[in-house]
């Protein structure tokens, strides 16, 4: 049981949790994640420690309210409550090397996963530019990133209330591609790194590929245990089946079978929607 020391909404649909989890705080390295189970009848979801204090034993998780579990967390958990399970750290740390000039991209709340990695790369002597493309009210960690890296760019995309959510997301993808292309055309880069939805990662990769710049991605396949015992998170990388939880989550973007990853990521979309609808119904019922 892990106590929530702080909980606050830091942007639209983005909740900050500072949690007492000394076993993770002691060991976590940039690039690693945890598996969280917040409720007795809950599922296990992968999240990334954004900041940590090894001595005080806390980690910070920033969670995007995306579906039932993350919504339940946002609605039901309070400061002082406990999260049932936080397993970790899991996955491999990203390599701590001098690459040179790095463009580290975070789409939506993906920027929170970029934060610890970009910060560590910068501290190691890399020249890191971070780029956050997201909806206007969802910009997070702007001040923190401005302090941590050479240059932090934010591309806020307005939410058009006349469009549905997928259409709005297509606007983010469009802005991402335009911005990345502009940056690659105007400057020389040694490495591009990206965290975000698989579809956006592929779209950005297709641009980066034209310029021949090396690219790493943090992949987000579906996970259950996070320790290599089920293969839910399997991805094809360089023609081989890899488990993202123990072989990744970071891989060479040039080696990833993108279509397969994107198809696998969407397998439960209908059930996820159903779980969310049931929860919304229960919430509305509860308020009456």
């Amino acid at each position, binding site marked *: 049981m892990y106590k929530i020391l702080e909980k606050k909404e830091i942007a639209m649909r983005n909740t900050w949790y500072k949690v007492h989890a000394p076993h993770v705080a002691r060991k976590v390295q940039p690039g690693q994640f945890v598996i969280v189970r917040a409720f007795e009848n809950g599922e296990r979801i992968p999240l990334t420690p954004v900041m940590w204090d090894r001595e005080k034993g806390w980690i910070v998780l920033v969670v995007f309210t995306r579906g039932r579990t993350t919504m339940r967390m946002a609605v039901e958990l309070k400061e002082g409550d406990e999260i049932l399970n936080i*397993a*970790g*750290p899991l996955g491999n740390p990203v390599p701590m090397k001098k690459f040179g000039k790095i463009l580290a991209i975070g789409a939506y709340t993906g920027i929170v996963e970029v934060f610890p990695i970009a910060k560590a790369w910068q501290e190691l002597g890399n020249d890191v530019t971070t780029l956050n493309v997201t909806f206007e009210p969802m910009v997070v960690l702007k001040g923190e990133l401005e302090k941590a890296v050479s240059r932090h760019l934010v591309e806020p995309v307005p939410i058009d209330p006349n469009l549905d959510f997928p259409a709005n997301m297509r606007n983010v993808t469009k802005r991402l591609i335009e911005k990345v292309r502009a940056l690659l055309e105007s400057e020389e880069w040694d490495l591009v790194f990206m965290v975000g939805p698989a579809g956006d990662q592929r779209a950005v990769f297709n641009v980066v590929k034209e310029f021949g710049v090396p690219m790493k991605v943090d992949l987000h396949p579906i996970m259950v245990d996070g320790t*290599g015992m089920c293969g*839910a998170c399997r991805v094809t990388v360089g023609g081989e*089946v890899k488990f993202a939880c*123990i072989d990744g989550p970071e891989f060479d973007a040039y080696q990833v079978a993108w279509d397969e990853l994107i198809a*696998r990521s969407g397998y439960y979309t209908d059930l*996820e929607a159903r779980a969310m609808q*049931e929860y919304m119904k229960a919430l509305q019922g509860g308020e009456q």
Partner: protein
Amino acid sequence: MAVKRKLIKERVPTPERPPEERIRDFAEVNLGYTFELAVKEAERCLQCPYNYAPCIKGCPVHIDIPGFISKLVEYRDNPDKAVKEALNVIWACNSLPATTGRVCPQEDQCEMNCVMGKVGDKINIGKLERFVADYAREHGIDEELLFEIVPKIEKKGQKVAIIGAGPAGLTAAGELAKLGYDVTIYEALHEAGGVLMYGIPEFRLPKEIVQSEIEKLKKLGVKILTDHIVGKTVTMEELLEEYDAVFIGSGAGTPRFINAPGINLNGIYSANEFLTRVNLMKAYKFPEYDTPVKVGKRVIVIGAGNTGMDAARSARRFGAEVIIAYRRGPEDVSARVEEVEHAKEEGIKFEFFLNPVEFIGDGRGNLKAVKFEKMKPLDEKDSRGKRKIVGTGEYVTLEADTVIIAIGKHPNRLIVNTPGLKVERGKIVVDENLMTSIPGVFAGGDAIRGEATVILAMGDGRRAAKAIHEYLTKKREEQRENA
């Protein structure tokens, strides 16, 4: 006991729920004995002498089987007393009888050489063991017995770390706690139990029962740290600094996949993923429980071991039509006879001599069908004593929207990568005392065997506990001499 007894040839049956009822839910299939039925079955036992009884030899943890059975008969007028005495006998060797009574392959172990088999049916040892444990739990008798045992434990002042809360680790922990060691289990998942929780379905082994047996271990003083992944959260070096000995019972949890095109299509699960979602995460109760699982209309399970049966019978309970496809013949099926029978009763079909060569998609990343090569057996046998098989060059395609791969598992790589730990073909190498290449580090269960059974893992846990006890006794004596 020189009591004249009449020979009762036929086994007293245990009631079972009918297939048409049980395939609609995940509740237990076999309902077990009542006290009256248990006594009737117990009376059939010939009470072979302890040093001779073949049932004891067949049990990997050597429970005094005639000993516990005789208590049921001796105190037949006092069920609580009968069960308490019987449980005391069982606990001397086995801390998880409600579990082993349900999931052991008794036909290959204790019951294999039961003398009664020569004149009639063998004694139903598993169901009697299960009865004792269940009755004790339901009547609080186990608590009573614990209350008597715990104060008598003499503390040794030495600490043992156990990696993995599966059958091997839980058994080792129980034994060591009874010997007075300070035991801490490190478990990666959020619940202790290992395969008992994530692998074996509720309809064979209710999860409440596993948890209640684990609660008893905690009362013996065993501490369990869930969410701790040895190799990540804590390293072996750190454990060796803090503890006097370590036992690795991390199992064989990494699934094997088939090296065939289309293996990553949507709808293809490893049995581990499917069963973990269903059992540990209770996806069969979605959306009351948050974890989803998808079972199509037509499911093909590849592999015919116990895991294959568990996966097939679980899928059936979602209303699917289920086929088990196996590359060998019916005589090579490795699952327990009882489980195969249950699967057939529940309407699961078997297809033999089919080897998957390709998984065919619908063009949008979802599975549509499986292409198999037809196999045929040869007269030669392979190293495991099974008939060799070869492809015929003929193919057959079966439609399916879900495939569950149950062709086996490897020991977990996270543990196997420990520096200084000798490993051969993914399995941890141990000596005759179950000690690994690192002094003070012992291992057992699937981590050293590859995929085996619950009771073999428990047998290893018990043997390792003894070896650790000897190792630590020596260490204590050395420290005393040096002091």
